[in-house]
């Protein structure tokens, strides 16, 4: 099968994808606009040359996501897009240390930013999607990238990944929103993707100053929103815990994190209403 090669220009990184699975490009067109999903551009430097293809002599239809000689994982054709998206996360989380990388969603509105670090199942992506629908600009649903030089947060705009019940929640609250590539039975359960808002794509190179860090926890039996302020050292430790490359960066990582934390306020919220959580975040950003 001939290789199809195309670029994904997801500032600050450009990926070049080589695959013999022709439908991949069309599938990705549903979640990436033509401004970022392009034919190969020889005038661009490529950060990550990804091979998403069947291994040589393989009898299986599964594709392997690889970066040079490093294997990420196999993808059955039924779970192509989730594996592809996780593969991009793997590249950013493991093969760059230009930015301190924290597992968190980041959004911005009127110059104020909110960082939402949280473990899976905490409702981070749902809250992130709701904030975006409320007019916030999405910087990332997965990676809070902190520039080591100026301490600002760098966007890496990509689709929001919704999991399990959050798909139904978003469908109910926003019936006009199209959730693409809903894939059942992945190891994370059912996954679906929401494409970022127009404004998020348009401003996908604009950095923001850090302001607010919110550790969200969705609890269905929570009767009222519970908000606990966090000290700077609590924020530091929790962010370090959620970081992909804090330990690799050594002293630079410590200094970058310390500078970041000194510029933010943070709290933990336990909520069962996204609207209440959004109201609280907007109030703190005034």
């Amino acid at each position, binding site marked *: 099968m001939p290789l199809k090669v195309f670029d994904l220009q997801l500032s*600050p990184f*450009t990926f*070049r994808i080589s695959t013999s699975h022709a439908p991949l490009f069309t599938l990705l067109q549903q979640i990436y606009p033509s401004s970022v999903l392009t034919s190969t551009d*020889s*005038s*661009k*430097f*490529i*950060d990550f*040359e990804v091979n998403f293809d069947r291994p040589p002599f*393989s009898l*299986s239809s*599964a594709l392997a996501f690889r*970066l*040079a*000689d490093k*294997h*990420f*994982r*196999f993808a059955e054709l039924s779970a192509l897009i989730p594996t592809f998206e*996780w593969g991009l*996360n*793997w590249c950013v*989380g*493991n*093969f*760059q*240390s*230009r930015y301190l990388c924290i*597992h968190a969603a980041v959004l911005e509105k009127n110059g104020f930013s909110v960082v939402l670090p949280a473990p*899976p199942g905490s409702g981070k992506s749902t809250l992130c999607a709701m904030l975006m629908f409320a007019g916030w600009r999405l910087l990332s649903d*997965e990676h809070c990238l902190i520039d080591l030089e100026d301490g600002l947060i760098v966007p890496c705009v990509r689709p929001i990944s919704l999991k399990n019940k959050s798909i139904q929640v978003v469908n109910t609250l926003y019936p006009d929103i199209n959730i693409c590539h809903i894939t059942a039975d992945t*190891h*994370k359960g059912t996954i679906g993707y929401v494409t970022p808002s127009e404004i998020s794509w348009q401003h996908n190179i604009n950095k923001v100053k850090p302001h607010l860090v919110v550790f969200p926890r969705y609890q269905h039996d929570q009767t009222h929103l519970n908000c606990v302020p966090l000290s700077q050292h609590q924020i530091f430790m929790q962010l370090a815990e959620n970081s*992909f*490359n804090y*330990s*690799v*960066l*050594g002293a*630079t990582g410590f200094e970058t994190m310390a500078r970041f934390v000194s510029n933010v306020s943070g709290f933990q919220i336990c909520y069962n209403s996204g609207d209440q959580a959004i109201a609280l975040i907007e109030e703190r950003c005034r």
Partner: protein
Amino acid sequence: MNSECIKLFREPAAYVAEATLAQWTSLISEARQQALLGSIYFLLKDHNLLHLLLSSVHSHLLTGFHYAEKQKNTLLQEMLELEVIFQNVDYPCVLVKGVGYRLSGLAFSRGRIFSDIDLLIPHTAFPDALAKLLDAGYLETGMSDYDRRYYIDWSHQHPPLTHFLRGANLDLHHHIFPVASHSGLAIAPMLENTKQLVDSAFAVPTLPFLLVHAAVHLFYQEETHKLVKDLCDLKQLYEECIATYSTEQLLTASQSMRAEAAVYYALDTLRWLFTLEVDTALLSKLSQHSSKYRRWQMQFLLQHLLSASALSQFAHLGWYIRGHLLKMGVGTLIYHSIAKFWETRKIKRQQSEMQKLLDAETRPKDA
């Protein structure tokens, strides 16, 4: 010659001035695969060229720098553990290859990534050193019976050891080349010509002996996946060696280990690949032990290994056979090849199944 890394190491300033974006893309991709990002970072830093780079390219080199720095700290921690284990032994404990370069303070080792700690000790002390390491928690990891037997009967080292808690990898050697090779390489001079590390149980070979080891490793190896890295290492090691030691000392080291041929082929290759100036008198003396056929064979294979020519797959096979023939006789090679073919086939099938199971049952780190 398609290796962008070799082009860069050959003429850093010219490369930085002239490389196209497509070349930079290939360079970073190749350097990531060869674990050369950190080495290139320091090479360009030393040539005062970092400020001329595209910020994206600089970012990836910086990533290599960060990983090398982290590995340096991890190595120091591990060395403190090893100091305790070997503090009172009465035999030489010599650190070779990557860790040897790093602990010798060689400039080119600053950004270098290594995969394990290579410890060379006299053959007579092998059982004691092995027992000490096993007692301290360095254990053999999963390996087939055939591979284990290969290491013990034919190679120059014990099967690789991994610390059960810290995950540190250690190779315990009693020679630098397989005992089955009948190569006649002498190991005693390398154990004798060392520099003791300050307040340490460990020593490191002097630079000429480190270079002889690297040359033997390059000339007699059968693997190709880190060939570019080995070549770039050898070039920088030679430059550092020749800045401190005379060519006569390098010749003496080569002669004492009976490794003149390997050193000749290695230096000849450096001259050819990197247009490096190598003392002609030294080459002339070393070449007396070389063979024109072997020299041609090595250059032919390297030329195709380092390019995307139609013959590159053939060259991989040729390099593999050549390396094994040097390591063992024809009879042993035939036996080994048949056994290894079945072994590899079985293992690949198992690994593929395991990988799929693992992928299906585990979450990526961000899950």
